[in-house]
């Protein structure tokens, strides 16, 4: 009697879950069914009762859904640090995708605003200044971060080498005829900077936020400016061509002695969340060792009109 009641309850669960009928197909993973008829993820949380997980082979656990990074979902920007859930190198299926990640000190994520040229809602699109309120260590990256305040808002940005509390930094999107005398920490479009300046936090596409040169102590060099595009040398000596309206910050990224640090012991690596590598001897397949080869051709992130389009 309890069994029949349970079976009735099981059928009820599958019906209300919005899944298709399972009776004809016997063994069916409810997770697959849930995914195929998927609405926003939130409606299918929390998971079904796992106490009846192996009932007639009907797997009702949706525990793998919990491997999704739901803590990252946040639409409003905030300077408050957010609690992170560590993945241990596992992906949404639960298997290890990247080895050597796991453990380490607890970290809180501070949302960094990589789009430096972001005007305050309600303000006109004009160059603006901000004041540095605090420069601090960020556990989630090698560089230090700075809390800057301007107008009515505060945000976190990647700090440059000599940023001090109380400095004023300028952000502008204007490209004038004359090159601007670049002050460290200011952000200008590449077209406004003189050739040869050290830059960091470079945008690859205008307005999409800084993607390149964000690590501690790195800096790129503005090599030349050619007809609406600018050519930059990245820290890996690769050269790229980007639109001259892409905004970059002037100077080197903070924490310049990051590459000179000595870990000292295995424990410190474990504190950083780096697990030991496999001890298995693996025959070198040509991947190890120093390679000396010519630079790859310059990558262009600008869609220049091709010859065929003109004809």
């Amino acid at each position: 009697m309890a069994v029949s009641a349970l079976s009735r309850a099981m059928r009820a669960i599958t019906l209300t879950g919005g899944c298709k009928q399972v009776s004809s197909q016997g063994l069916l993973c409810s997770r697959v069914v849930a995914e195929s008829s998927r609405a926003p993820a939130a409606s299918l949380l929390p998971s079904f009762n796992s106490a009846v997980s192996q009932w007639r082979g009907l797997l009702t656990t949706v525990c793998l859904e919990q491997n999704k990074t739901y803590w990252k979902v946040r639409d409003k920007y905030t300077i408050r640090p957010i609690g992170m859930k560590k993945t241990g190198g596992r992906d949404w299926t639960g298997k290890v995708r990247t080895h050597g990640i796991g453990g380490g000190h607890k970290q809180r994520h501070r949302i960094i605003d990589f789009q430096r040229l972001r005007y305050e809602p309600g303000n006109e699109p004009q160059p603006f200044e901000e004041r540095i309120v605090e420069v601090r260590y960020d556990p989630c990256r090698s560089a230090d971060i700075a809390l800057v305040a301007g107008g009515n808002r505060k945000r976190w940005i990647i700090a440059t080498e000599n940023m001090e509390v109380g400095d004023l930094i300028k952000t502008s999107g204007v490209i004038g005829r004359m090159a601007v005398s670049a002050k460290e920490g200011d952000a200008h479009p590449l077209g406004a900077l003189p050739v040869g300046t050290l830059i960091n936090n470079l945008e690859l596409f205008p307005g999409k936020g800084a993607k390149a040169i964000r690590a501690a102590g790195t800096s790129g060099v503005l090599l030349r400016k050619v007809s609406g595009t600018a050519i930059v040398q990245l820290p890996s000596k690769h050269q790229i061509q980007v639109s001259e309206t892409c905004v970059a910050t002037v100077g080197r990224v903070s924490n310049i002695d990051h590459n000179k640090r000595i870990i000292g012991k295995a424990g410190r690596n474990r504190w950083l969340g780096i697990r030991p590598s496999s001890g298995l001897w693996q025959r070198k397949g040509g991947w190890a060792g120093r390679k000396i080869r010519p630079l790859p051709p310059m990558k262009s992130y600008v869609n220049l009109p091709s010859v065929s389009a003109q004809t």
Partner: protein
Amino acid sequence: MLKTPVHRCSAITTGLKHLCVSNESGSCLLMLRSGRHGNRLLSTSSSVCGKALPRKKPREVVEISGLENISYAERMHFVPGLAKPIFSVWKPDFKDPFHYKSPKPEEMALYKDKSCYVFHQRTSLMEGVKQTLWLTKSKLIKGIPAQIMALADDPACQIENQDERVQNAIKHARFWDTTETRPPRERFCPTLLNSLLHLCGLQQFKHPALGERLLSRDYSLAASWHRGEDLIQVRGKNGMLLNSKSPLPAMADQEEVLSTADSFLETFYPIAPTIDLQNINVYDVKTDTGFREDYAYPHAHTLFFTHLKDGFLEQLRAKMVMFAFGNALARARALYGPEPQVLEKPVVLQSVATNGRLFQFVVFQLNTTDLTTDNGVKNLVWMEEQPLYDFAKVRPLIKKKVVQVPAGLAGYHPDTFKKFLAFYLHGAV
């Protein structure tokens, strides 16, 4: 026993192929394989060991206005070829508080296009007192007005055995109030404040006018004013308010008030003075003292705050000034009307805040309710900070076998309580 799951699995593999793509089957069979009870599926075919490929994005459904969507909604079951029906959201016609979804801000009754900046109990101003001076159009004077200092030094106003009784109160709050080693700040700070207020209140036999006072707490204040183009509001519960039947006399005379017109308000470019205030579009413009109009004690006398965080004293002082201003503005509007004007009889409000050891004294004199422009007569703020005692340690601080700070109460400052008492007696002596 073993065979059954394998057969079923093979059936499913074929069955599932038309349900979902092959990369899906890999992941689902992976789940079946390593479940809670171990490996149930012993097959080692490639479909089971496959890597979980990333999911493909679902086909984008294009909506063409004017074209009617023929869906299988009427048939009540899936029909291949017909569109998936999109049902409208069901709105229940009954009220269920556990499943209540609040409307969007734009749909709320009090939504306004122009936003407003609100200061409340939880606000922590970045620039501290400088910001409040701009927001309340005030001028800061360090120190306490001479009238209250005279009261503090007057020996006739002292309590008998004052120092001993205050030290007892401190020891009670800091050491004796709990069976544990030391009470936390959330406990000793309000206990100390209540003990000191009780001590002051006992003087009613000497000064009968003290009977015309009433201490109230948990009242909600509302005050709103325009500062340039921005609307700024002070809302919420403040702290304990000592009400009295008679108003406090003005601290600064007319000449000093008029001379404040020459002082300028400090701005801190590039930061706006409204930073850290909650910017909100759903608000009600109202000025409310928190008490009814026929309340027997209409004049606010002193605001008491307890600060239960360690540090953040600048933000505490800013909070004191803002709430003192809010209360004063609400009372002034109730007395003299909502028109912005320079007050002939300034409204004076005192404020005392403590974190258990340090006492912040603030006297706020509201001279004008004309706050739209930056020039003109300004309001006045007197401010002072003093410790009541230096250390109240449970265990002595010993460095290199030398006692630096002894256990118990150390470094008692009698002036602080004299000022506290003067603040209390002011207006009734």
